[in-house]
C-alpha cells in the first residue's frame, strides 16, 4: 500500500487529540491521500480550518495551515485564494463551524464562488465542547442541551448549497470509503466552490448517548440511513449519498431592441418660435410641448408634466436643453416622445 501520503501529515505531533473511533481520522487521511495523488505539496497548498474537533485537522497537515476563529475558515480561505490564486486552498472544518456560527459566511462565500474546496466533518453534534446539539442534529436527538430531544429541524446544507448554479455539493460518509475517496478527488478538481459534506461519527459524545456501543455500530447506522446514488445529479435527497453539481448555464443576453426611426430632416419639421411654444403648456386641451436641442417634442403622455405636483424642472412650453444637466435621467427619455417640430 502506498504510504507516501504520510509526508503530508505532521507525524511528530501524533498521537492526535481525537477520541478512539472518531471519524475525523478517516477524513484527514483520505484528504491527505487525495492531495498526494494530485502531487500537491506545501509550496502550493494551504489548509484552513475553524474551531472544533475538526478544526484541529489543519494543524496535523504538513502544509502552511491557518487555524481561524470559530466559523471563519471560509472567509479566510476565500481571501487567501484571492490574494494568491496560485495556491490550492482547502478548508477542513465541521458542521457547527460552517453551518452555525459561520452560516453567514457559508451563504456568501459560496455565492462568490471562489475556487476552494471545503471538507465538512458533519458529525451532527458539538463534540469538542461535550456533546451539545448542533445545527445538523436530527430532530428528536437527545443531546446534553436537548435532553428531551432536539426540538428543531436540522439545517440542510445540501439545500443551501445547491440553490443556484454553479455549485458542487457532495454528500458521503466515513463508512463508504471508496465513495468518500471519489468525492474528495472530484471536489479537489472542481473549478469553483466545492463542498463535501462528510457524515462522520462521534461515538464518545454522541453515539453512546444514542445507544451505540462502538463506532462500527454507528457506521452500520450510516449504512442504513443512506444509500449511494450514481451518475450526474442536480440535487440530492436527504438519504442519498452522491455528487450534485451544476455549472452556470450560459444565458444569452437578450438583445436590446433597437427601433430604427426614419431619418427626419430638420427642414421638414414644423417651425416653432419660443412664443408659440409657450402656448402649448397643456392648458385648454392643448398638447404639452417642450424644446430640447432645437427640436420640439410632444410630452403630453408624460405623467410628470401634469397636475399640480409636477416636478421642478418639468415646465411645459419651454426650452429645457439646459435643465438636462441637473436631471437624474439622460436625454434618451426625451427622444422616446414624438418629435413634432423644430425651434426657430
Amino acid at each position: 500500500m502506498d504510504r507516501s501520503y504520510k509526508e503530508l501529515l505532521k507525524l511528530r505531533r501524533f498521537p492526535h487529540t481525537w477520541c478512539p473511533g472518531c471519524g475525523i481520522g478517516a477524513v484527514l487521511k483520505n484528504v491527505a491521500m487525495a492531495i498526494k495523488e494530485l502531487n500537491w505539496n506545501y509550496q502550493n497548498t494551504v489548509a484552513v480550518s475553524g474551531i472544533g474537533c475538526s478544526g484541529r485537522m489543519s494543524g496535523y497537515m504538513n502544509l502552511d495551515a491557518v487555524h481561524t476563529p470559530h466559523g471563519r475558515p471560509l472567509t479566510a480561505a476565500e481571501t487567501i485564494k484571492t490574494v494568491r490564486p496560485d495556491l490550492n486552498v482547502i478548508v477542513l472544518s465541521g458542521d457547527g463551524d460552517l453551518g452555525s456560527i459561520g452560516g453567514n459566511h457559508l451563504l456568501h462565500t459560496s455565492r462568490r464562488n471562489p475556487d476552494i474546496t471545503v471538507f465538512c466533518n458533519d458529525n451532527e453534534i458539538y463534540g469538542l465542547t461535550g456533546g451539545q446539539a448542533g445545527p445538523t442534529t436530527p430532530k428528536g436527538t437527545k443531546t446534553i442541551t436537548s435532553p428531551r430531544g432536539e426540538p428543531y429541524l436540522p439545517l440542510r446544507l445540501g439545500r443551501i448549497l445547491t440553490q443556484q448554479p454553479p455549485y458542487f455539493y457532495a454528500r458521503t460518509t466515513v463508512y463508504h470509503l471508496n465513495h468518500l475517496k471519489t468525492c474528495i478527488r472530484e471536489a479537489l478538481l472542481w473549478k469553483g466552490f466545492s463542498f463535501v459534506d462528510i457524515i462522520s461519527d462521534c461515538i464518545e459524545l454522541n453515539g453512546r448517548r444514542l445507544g451505540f456501543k462502538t463506532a462500527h455500530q454507528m457506521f452500520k447506522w450510516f449504512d442504513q440511513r443512506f444509500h449511494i446514488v450514481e451518475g450526474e445529479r442536480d440535487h440530492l435527497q436527504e438519504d442519498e449519498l452522491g455528487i450534485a453539481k451544476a455549472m452556470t448555464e450560459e444565458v444569452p443576453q437578450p438583445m436590446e431592441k433597437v427601433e430604427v426611426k426614419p431619418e427626419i430632416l430638420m427642414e421638414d419639421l414644423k417651425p416653432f418660435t419660443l412664443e408659440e411654444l409657450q402656448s402649448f403648456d397643456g392648458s385648454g386641451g392643448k398638447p404639452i410641448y417642450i424644446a430640447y436641442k432645437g427640436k420640439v417634442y410632444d410630452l403630453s403622455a408624460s405623467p410628470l408634466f401634469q397636475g399640480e405636483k409636477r416636478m421642478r424642472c418639468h415646465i411645459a412650453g419651454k426650452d429645457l436643453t439646459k435643465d438636462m444637466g441637473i436631471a437624474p435621467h439622460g436625454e434618451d427619455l426625451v427622444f422616446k416622445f414624438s418629435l413634432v417640430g423644430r425651434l426657430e
Partner: protein
Amino acid sequence: MKRLVSGNEAIFQGAIQAGASYFAGYPISPASEILQQAALYSEENSGFRFLQAEDEIAAAIATISASLSGAKAFTATSGPGFTLMQEALGWGHVIEAPCVFVNSMRVGPSTGMPTQPAQSDLLQIKAGSAGDYYPIAFYPNSVEECFRLTATAFNAAEESLSPIILLADAFLSHLYEMVDLERITVEVTPRSKEPLGSGQRLFTGTAHDKIGNVKTNDPVVYREWLWEVKGRHDRAAEKYPLFEYLPRKNSETLLIAFGITSRIISSLKDRFSIFRPIRIYPVLEKELKEMTQSYRHIIVVEGSDGQYASWVECAICRKVMKVPCLGGGFKLKWIQNQIEECLKGAGR
C-alpha cells in the same frame, strides 16, 4: 497639485502609498468612502484586490488572511463595525498578522448617533478582544496627517507584526482640506513575514509555541510567548512616540486633546498650553509625566466620558479634570465655558 482632499481619501491614498494591495470592508458611515475608493481603485489596478464582505466579521478576517497571504491589507469601519471586528483583532495579535484597521469613530454605544463624531472607542482598541494584547493606535488631526499616519501605521504593523489601529472620527473623515498628496513622501517598510505557501507552519489562534505547535496547558510556553510579543510591540511603539506640544508661557493649565478636538481647541493656544498625543496607545507615559509636572491644572478635552483621561491619570498618578464632549457636541464656546468652570471649581 494642491486639491481638496477628504480625510477618508487621504487615509486610502496613504495606504496605497504604503504599498497596500488588499482592502476588505463593509459599508458603514462615516468610513464608507474608503470602501468606495477601494472598489474604484481595484477596477483600475488589477494588483489591488478588494472585497465587500457580508459583514465586518468577514471583512476583518479577510484583512488578516490577506496579510498572511502576503498582501499589505487594511480595512475601515466605525464603532459598531469595530465591535464586530474585535474577534479578528484578537486573532490577528495571536497569529501575528501585520495589517491596519481604520476606525472612524461615531457616537456609541451600539448604533448610537449616525453620524455624529465621537472619540469613545479608545477602550475598545485596548480591551475589546479577550485576553492580554498590546495594540498600537494612532490618531491624526488633519487630512495631511491622515495620509502620513496611515503609512506610519503600515510600517508599525510590519515592525510589531500585529494589526495597528488608525483612529479617526466622523469630523475628520469628512473634513476637506487643501493638500498636495503627490508631494508628501513617506517611508515604506517592506513586508517582514513570509507569505503562505512557503513552509509548513501553523497560524493558530490557540496558544502555541514558537514553531506553531498548539500548547493549551503549558503556562511557561504561554508566558514566554506573551513576553516576546509584548517586547516586540513595545519596541515598535517606542519608534513612534508621536505627539504635539504647544507651550504657553505662564500658563498654569495644560489642555490635553487629540484628533478633531485638538483642532477645535487650537484657538485656545494663546491662553493655555496644549498637549496632543498622536500615538494614543500605548499611552505616552514618559512624555505625559514630563509635560504635566509643571502645570497646576490638567484638563482632558475629549469626545468620550473620560476614556483617555483615565489613562492619563494612571500614567501620571494624579487626578485630572475632564471636559467630555458627548453626543457629537464639539462647540468651542461650550468647551471654553466648561474649561472655565473646571478652573473655577479647582480654585484658580
